[in-house]
């Protein structure tokens, strides 16, 4: 039977088992919306701004591992979506974004609401397509889902001109796709794995340095087993948090610019470093020349060959699916008798414990003003450490990463690569829809939350009982912190003189608002908020204005050249 392009789009999404489409209608996608109206296979979530749609789809994907789907119209619909697409791209999140386009005959004529979508999105997608013939539509959508979800995941844009949604073609959804130009390597090279194992078993000061790839590659179980079998210390990037339980003794905390003292020193002084789904980002290793001063052997496991030896030259590259490679390593270690030198390992742990004793995340618990760290710690207690936590970008993001100890993967949802302010609320929407019964908290700042505040309206429409934890210090805190340290306290444009009354704002959107001003009220307020299981509660915590994030590695410095709280 012949179907219209619009019918084909909807049928393809149903065939892919899509639960939610996050979107916003407009002229170029009216035919698709008309078909959405007629079906009941998936739900459409109407956001208030296209950026929110893409972030929500992204949040859904991060929390579930499934492909997130967004639908926007041509022109401004697309340009509004670009920040969301770039955010997902930088963090390798599987997503399909369907964009309307002006009719094929109008393309290139500066038509109303026309932009070169494929051109604009090209540098921030894993791949994109412009579908000019309705007969290519189904196979293109199939390819889009395949590309988004396999190898190193990423967003894929499918741009569909309006006339293509009206034309008809026979519909048959392909069972699979074969692409001669796209075949990600998943199985690690046997010889490389062997070499890596020799290094691992010969290590005297080992470190497992894990990243977002562990979460994305569903390798958390394998990582735990490997770390415990070998008694190796584990550190994680911002994106990898939850890949290894944060409350476990072997976990050294996050490393990098705001990493712990013990994690950064271990990173610098280990003799065998196993990088697992991590990419030696500038926020992680600081100055590469300083990092290279110490000699260490590096094994790097990653599904994307271009991530290997990009910033740091490695000794044993292993291209492959992180989970498959770790499982193969485990199998071989278990099959053999050889184990790392226990004496050396004990000495290494003794050293690490000395570093850990510095207690670098200490802060003033006696303060009469609410300390942001305290709010996050209390949030952890009140939620039993089991909440899904989204964040925006800035100081609050780092405190969330440092003080909410994630024990499971996919619980920590934030924009690590692009650092997009405004993601927190729409991320939380996607997460809550994916896990309706879960506790979902959005830790945010008064700068970030205002970047997508309009989505409070979407939350009302879909009854999403999020808990918004606003750490309100009346400053763009991370900017202020840099200005304090590096710009002689010239606080250029980092203070917002006129903030809304967040309680009234929450109430105006139909939610519950609270302002909490004293440390002794923090826990009670959190308990009260989480007891309201069917309401969104917007919690405005008035926090210490001048609290800083420590430790801190200043830009361009080596990772052991940290500023610690006690040094100020």
């Amino acid at each position, binding site marked *: 039977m012949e179907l219209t392009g619009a019918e084909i789009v909807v049928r393809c999404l149903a065939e892919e088992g899509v639960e939610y489409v996050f979107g916003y209608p407009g002229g170029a996608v009216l035919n698709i919306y008309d078909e959405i109206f007629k079906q009941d296979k998936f739900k459409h979530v109407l956001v208030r701004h296209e950026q929110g749609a893409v972030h929500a789809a992204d949040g859904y994907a991060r929390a579930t591992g499934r492909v997130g789907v967004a639908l926007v119209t041509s022109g401004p619909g697309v340009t509004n979506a670009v920040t969301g697409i770039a955010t997902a791209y930088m963090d390798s999140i599987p997503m399909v974004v369907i964009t309307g386009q002006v009719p094929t005959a109008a393309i290139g004529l500066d038509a109303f609401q026309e932009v070169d979508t*494929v*051109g604009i999105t*090209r*540098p921030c997608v*894993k*791949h994109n397509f*412009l579908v000019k013939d309705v007969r290519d539509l189904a196979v293109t959508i199939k390819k889009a889902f395949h*590309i988004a979800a396999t190898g190193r995941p990423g967003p894929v844009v499918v741009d569909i001109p309006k006339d293509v949604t009206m034309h008809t073609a026979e519909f048959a959804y392909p069972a699979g796709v074969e*692409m*001669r*130009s*796209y075949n990600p390597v998943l199985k690690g090279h046997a010889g490389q794995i062997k070499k890596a194992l020799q290094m691992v078993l010969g290590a005297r000061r080992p470190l497992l340095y894990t990243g977002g790839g562990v979460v994305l590659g569903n390798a958390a179980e394998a990582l735990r087993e490997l770390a415990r079998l070998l008694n190796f210390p584990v550190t994680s990037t911002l994106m990898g948090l939850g890949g290894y339980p944060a409350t476990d003794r072997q976990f050294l905390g996050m490393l990098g610019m705001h990493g712990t003292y013990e994690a950064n020193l271990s990173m610098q002084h280990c003799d065998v470093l196993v990088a697992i789904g991590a990419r030696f980002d500038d926020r992680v290793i600081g100055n590469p020349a300083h990092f290279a001063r110490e000699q260490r052997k590096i094994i790097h496991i990653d599904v*994307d*060959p*271009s991530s290997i*030896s*990009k910033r740091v*030259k490695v000794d044993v590259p292993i291209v492959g699916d992180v989970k498959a490679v770790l499982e193969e390593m485990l199998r071989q270690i278990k099959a053999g008798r050889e184990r790392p030198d226990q004496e050396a390992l004990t000495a290494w742990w003794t050293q690490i414990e000395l570093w850990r004793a510095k207690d670098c995340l200490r802060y003033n618990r006696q303060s009469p003003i609410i300390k942001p760290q305290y709010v996050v710690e209390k949030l952890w207690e009140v939620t039993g450490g089991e909440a899904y936590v989204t964040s925006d970008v800035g100081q609050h993001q780092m405190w969330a990463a440092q003080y909410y100890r994630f024990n499971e993967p996919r619980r920590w949802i934030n924009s690590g690569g692009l650092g997009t302010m405004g993601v927190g609320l729409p991320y939380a929407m996607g997460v809550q829809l994916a896990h309706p019964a879960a506790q979902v908290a959005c830790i945010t700042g008064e700068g970030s939350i205002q970047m997508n505040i309009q989505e409070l309206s979407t939350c009302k429409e879909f009854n999403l009982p999020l808990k918004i934890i606003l750490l309100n210090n009346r400053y763009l805190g991370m900017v202020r912190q840099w200005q304090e340290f590096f710009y002689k306290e010239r606080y250029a444009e980092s203070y917002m003189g006129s903030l809304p009354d967040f309680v009234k704002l929450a109430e105006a959107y139909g939610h519950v608002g609270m302002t909490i001003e004293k440390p002794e009220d923090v826990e009670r307020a959190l308990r009260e908020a989480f007891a309201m299981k069917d309401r969104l509660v917007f919690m405005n915590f008035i926090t210490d204005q001048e609290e800083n994030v420590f430790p801190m590695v200043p830009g361009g410095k080596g990772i052991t050249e940290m500023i610690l709280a006690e040094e100020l």
Partner: protein
Amino acid sequence: MKSRRHIISVLMENEAGALSRVAGLFSARGYNIESLTVAPTEDATLSRMTIVTTGSEEVVEQIVKQLNKLIDVVKVLDLSDGHHIERELMLVKVRAGGKDREEMKRMADIFRGRIIDVTDKTYTIELTGTGSKLDAFLEAIDAAVILETVRTGASGIGRGERVLKL
């Protein structure tokens, strides 16, 4: 880190936008492009591109990896890793009147060029060879007589059994 000239062959899907993905990759990541040529192969679904670039081993390793990462790219080969041949075509229009006329013909012959268009005052000479041979020709003739030049950029192919194919 020593920078060296590399000539990279890319076999890619012959699809709209494939060229812009490669060009965009080079500009976005700050890689240098000396020349880039592209045309369909004997299999019309495939295009073959030759890119001449300079960079350290590390940078060129990244270029090859990043090219491979493009979904439309089927295969990538750094021809400079082994024996290869490269050729570039140049058309040069020169002023060739009076006593210069015979001299210009002789120079074209020496460089195994062919005169493919003639007027009473000009010659258009077609020259094929490596880039340095074409440079040498331009240096050998009087700069003042050159009216215009157009070059294709290098195309490359591996020697002998070294084949870039599906």
